């Protein structure tokens, strides 16, 4: 809790407004440390490129539909049509294993996503 208070006192206030095409719109006000990870837009037409992952991490105060003081993490994944099997791979060395797994499944509707 001390860390939360320090983070709250030593930082500025910011309001984050999310304008996304898939229903993630909204505004939130943060006081403290905020980490925002927005989905990258891709020009590729494949289903996998249209999988989007957003996350918001806060250490401090958040004003949303209420008040929250502490650590909060919201993560949202939007999955388009024709993407029925989705694998998020965090470690680069696991990428090859995931590809092998999906190849063995032989599903054209599978999506492999890099996730840091």
């Amino acid at each position, binding site marked *: 809790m001390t860390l939360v208070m320090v983070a709250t006192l030593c930082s500025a206030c910011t309001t984050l407004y999310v304008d996304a095409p898939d229903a993630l719109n909204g505004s939130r006000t943060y006081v403290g440390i905020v980490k925002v990870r927005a989905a990258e837009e891709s020009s590729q037409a494949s289903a996998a490129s249209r999988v989007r992952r957003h996350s918001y991490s806060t250490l401090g105060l958040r004003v949303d539909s209420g008040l929250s003081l502490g650590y909060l993490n919201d993560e949202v*994944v939007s999955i388009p049509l024709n993407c029925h099997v989705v694998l998020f791979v965090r470690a680069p060395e696991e990428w090859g*294993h995931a590809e092998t797994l999906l190849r063995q499944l032989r599903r054209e509707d599978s999506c492999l996503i890099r996730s840091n």
Partner: protein
Amino acid sequence: MSHPIKLNPAIRTLLVATTALLSACATPDHSNTMIFGTSTRVALDVSQEPTGSLGATLGYKRQEAVWMPLLANTKTAEGKWNPTACTGDKCPMFVGTTGEQGGAAGANASDTYSVLATFSGDMGGSAQNAGVQAKVAQYFATGLAARLLAQYGGAAAVGASASAPDSATIRAANSVVATQHRQADVVSIKLSKTDGLVDPALRDSLLAKTPASELSDGEKTLIKSLKTRDELQDHLKNAPPGIAARLFSTLDKL
């Protein structure tokens, strides 16, 4: 537009919670996209509950929910999403079906939109019956995928604390892989000509005989699409267990 769908109270609460979690005060537009949300809090939290009452939490709280499209939408000329028109009793809805041949869930089974998503925690890449075994830290499933996971123990796929395979297991797995590779080598050589191309007549003859004939139509089509010895060899080496073995066992009947 309303639909006569009865929801489990817990699921209804989750969906309402998803709306509140994901979009603050706005109602999400439905864009034929499935949304999965996770909210983790280690905090003092005072906020409005999905039921409308004010709730307070002190400590750890985690919520997971899925916002799933049921009724198909189309884009208007202005670029807005609108539900497609229902004609008679039929509405274009997202439904997963198993088809006439069925599957593990049974023939002609249907359920809501089917998705299986995993967030990898540990994909060890160990071989098990020549397959790849993956351990995941978190996953979610909907529709038929969820039913199959529940039926066949999908929870076993989550094994953050899974112990490493012992040496006997590794030796057995390596033996299975080596056998499959050897069978793939023999089959691909037997079915190809000296110029490195697959002999179509010989291949079709092999596929028509038991036990190779018992392979699925999809697998046969895939094998028939492979033109060269190397392609066939590579495919059989990486194919699910049993395919190379069946072709190998049929070679005696040529």
